[in-house]
């Protein structure tokens, strides 16, 4: 944790600002930085590429990317984290949901550069070694899936929801999970999975 904080602080300092503004502003800034002179290692960004530094599932990541790369493309194609799925590629279905600084976002609809200096959490990041997170375990027990393709997005939305509302009502779940399409129609079992995970949270707290 400490290491992450340091790298983030250093990164922001390098931007020459203490305030991370809007996503757009940040991406412009980081593009400006990496297109500029050089960085610590003395590397120059290849032509038409910019340097990106962020934290993914607790690990610092540093690489050169084309500015047009989406966060979903970064995760899937460059970091090989293919748990994050792309279904509509237009921010309409929720399959690509990941957490960005603790908030659920559609990663197909965000530039990778907009995640500069931030922390990304994907479905793979919930695992402890080979051990499932209790939320993932709830999806197994309650069978909150069929084909499984939308499942990582469902789980990440649920994770964000439970972070915000550790004790959600069924209506909170219906509302909180409304942005995630499941064409197989596992919805009732998805809702049960989230509820079961919340209950086991509550038990753990007691």
């Amino acid at each position: 944790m400490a290491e992450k904080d340091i790298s983030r602080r250093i990164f922001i300092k390098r931007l020459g600002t203490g305030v991370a503004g809007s996503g757009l502003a940040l991406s412009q800034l980081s593009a400006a930085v990496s297109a500029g002179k050089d960085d610590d290692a003395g590397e120059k960004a290849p032509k038409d590429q910019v340097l990106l530094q962020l934290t993914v599932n607790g690990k610092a990541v540093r690489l050169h990317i084309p500015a047009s790369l989406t966060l979903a493309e970064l995760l899937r194609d460059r970091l090989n984290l293919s748990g994050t799925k792309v279904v509509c590629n237009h921010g309409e279905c929720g399959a690509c949901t990941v957490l960005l600084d603790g908030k659920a976002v559609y990663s197909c609809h965000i530039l990778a550069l907009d995640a500069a200096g931030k922390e990304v959490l994907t479905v793979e990041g919930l695992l402890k070694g080979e051990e499932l997170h209790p939320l993932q375990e709830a999806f197994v027990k309650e069978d909150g899936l069929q084909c499984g393709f939308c499942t990582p997005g469902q789980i990440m939305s649920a994770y964000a929801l439970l972070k915000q509302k550790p004790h959600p009502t069924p209506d909170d779940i219906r509302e909180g999970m409304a942005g995630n399409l499941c064409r197989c129609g596992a919805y009732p079992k998805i809702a049960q999975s989230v509820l079961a995970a919340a209950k086991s949270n509550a038990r753990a707290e007691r």
Partner: protein
Amino acid sequence: MADKKVIKSRYFFEEDFEEQLAEVPAEKVAAWDKKAKLKIVGKGVDRYDAYDKVSGTARYTFDIQLPHMAYAKTLRCPYAHACIKSIDVSQAEKMPGVLAVLTADNAPKIKWYRGTSYLFDRHLRYAGDEVACVAAKSERIAAQALKKIKVEYEVLPFVADAGKAMQPDAPKLYENGNIAGGKPSVYERGNADEGFNRADVVVEETFDTQVVVHNPTEPHCSVVNWDGDKLTVWDSTQSVFGVRNALADSLDIPANHVRVIKKYMGGGFGSKLAAGKYTIMAALLARTIGRPVKISMDREEMNLAVGNRPDSVQKLKFGAKKDGTLLAMSHYSYGAAGAYPSGAGCSWPLRSIYKCPNVRTEEYTVFINAGPGRPFRAPGHVQGTFALEAMIDTMAEKTGMDPLDFRLKNYSEIDPVSGQPYTTKRLREAYEAGAKAIGWENRNKKPGSDSGVIKRGLGMASQIWWGGGGPPTYANLKMNRDGSVEVLCGTQDIGTGTYTILAQVAAEVLELPMDKVSVILGDTAVTPYAHGSGGSVTAPSTTPAVRHAAELMKEKLIGYAAAQMNLPPERIAYRSGELVDRDNPAQKMSVSALMRKVREQVLVTTGMREANPEGYAVNTFGAQFAEVEVHTDTGKIVVKRIVAAHDIGRTLNRKLLENQFEGGIMQGIGFALMEERVIDRNTGKVLTTNLENYKMTLLPDMPEIEVIIVSDADPLLNNTGVKGIGEPAHIPTAAAIANAVYNATGVRFKSLPLTPDKVLQGLYGGVKQG
């Protein structure tokens, strides 16, 4: 048990009866008794592949990346109907990163769409038809290269409506006209006209249903890789053997040079039952450039070019006696196949569900300039059941009967089409259980009588489908020296739980814990043949084959134990994973102890789906009951509750079964209320090409659902007593909702989907009064 014979097998698969030679066991494995106390089968065990799916480690075709892989994108025709005059790819080819471009100019002439067209045809019949395919270093470069291809089109007149396409002066898609086969498909029993003449009550109505699109979450996609003249293909497909044969035929290479693999897939619903052009195009490009190629449809292509459920216009005429006895039914329908052959008939439910001596159906499948249809979860039955069950309710009202009583009055104990008895039919029980659960007595006795702005109503609909499966389907079972087993079967788990149910059956027979069983599916190089995953045949075809293989393994182990223990095989019994001397139960050995004597050997058996019983009709039945609220101020319909009561043979896994039923119902709600592919009449272009405009059901749209299984098992059908559920779950939902809306409002809506505008139009003629 190990003896076998070859038969001519006949079973129903999606749109038609299939006939196939098949090897079957000469002697059937005795079916599990209806009351058999099974330890693992029937239990709600966790999904076999759940870990991979919730952890994000499941690799779908869409996720596969190979070293040095190139990406392909397809250029599609922008016009509803056109001919290519010329194509210039020179600018595209010059782009850095572009590796190859395929068009009608340089691609081999490969027949497609049942010989009506080619892989690349100069005659383009819909906005979305394939014009060129580019391979490049990245998907983005490939997409940019498409824009550099210059195509000169001769734009032709088009027709995007089935009714118009049937007119003699309509633009023609084919020389022989727009009606598939040149004539309707006609079915007749008795004499419908005579029946109408004798009837006391005759009703005639016209219904229509919309085109809907499968939209599975994982796009249609393939990854292809050549090693010399050997081709490996990862494909998001419901039929690995179908894709392999299409590749071998199209590329004119031996079938044993093609390996097709499908491990996980993000849904199909019928749209991935046949090989797609994209797979062949990727294979051609990969051979040209000497690199693996990945091709994935984007969401727009998913909504244009990879299948849909044809629409329907249905004219129904029913005649009945005063006492509610159905005397005659006629059904005239037409529906759009799209631009290439597929079936648009929808009269099967009407022909087959009620006792009625005089029936006539006449169905036209019509070509229009739109994306081709493909089977979609119970082809024909969903649209057919909507119209049929509305008519049945109308007849009940006209004869002064309760809708359920009317259905029971016309209940058929035998299959009215073949005259054969059913292996089982528990529709009566489904009616009773469903009515009780929904509180049928609380419906509005007079439709529309519910007062207030929000009107509540109850409705129901019946379901019939095949779903019995049949041979050929095979499964291999391997036992390793530690007593662990592997099940291998050429079927595919498309999200339904096939991995899980096959593991359950093997574990049940061999009395093993589930974690001792692994399952390998969907790989033409290692798994024995099974059907495509459609028609609700997977469970009833594969589970008996796996059970047979496991029973053979038990027999084999007894033989090995007999040799080891120096006893005749008859003396050995297999009990709870142990081989026991019947005469001296103290003398026994565990499977793992026996397998150590077998050393590195792997024991292998092959199980087969047995023949279907002769002289019987095999069907699934059910009834769904819906409670709805109609908001008469906004026109919005809210489905509050669905009760699904079904006869589907034996329940293999209650948890997975419920899930699949809920999914079928969810898609039924989409069909009833919101899903619709919209084509612009002026340009022939699809307007609903993304998930914003193509509306699908989300969590907040879900009602409370209760699933009731009224069947115990169907031991006459197969050794596990199992029938399919995928399509039965979906068939009656929309019809039940529509009938509930009638009960709520007293207005009969005859056009799906029941969108707020149609509801307001029906209630107030478009504008709310007062």
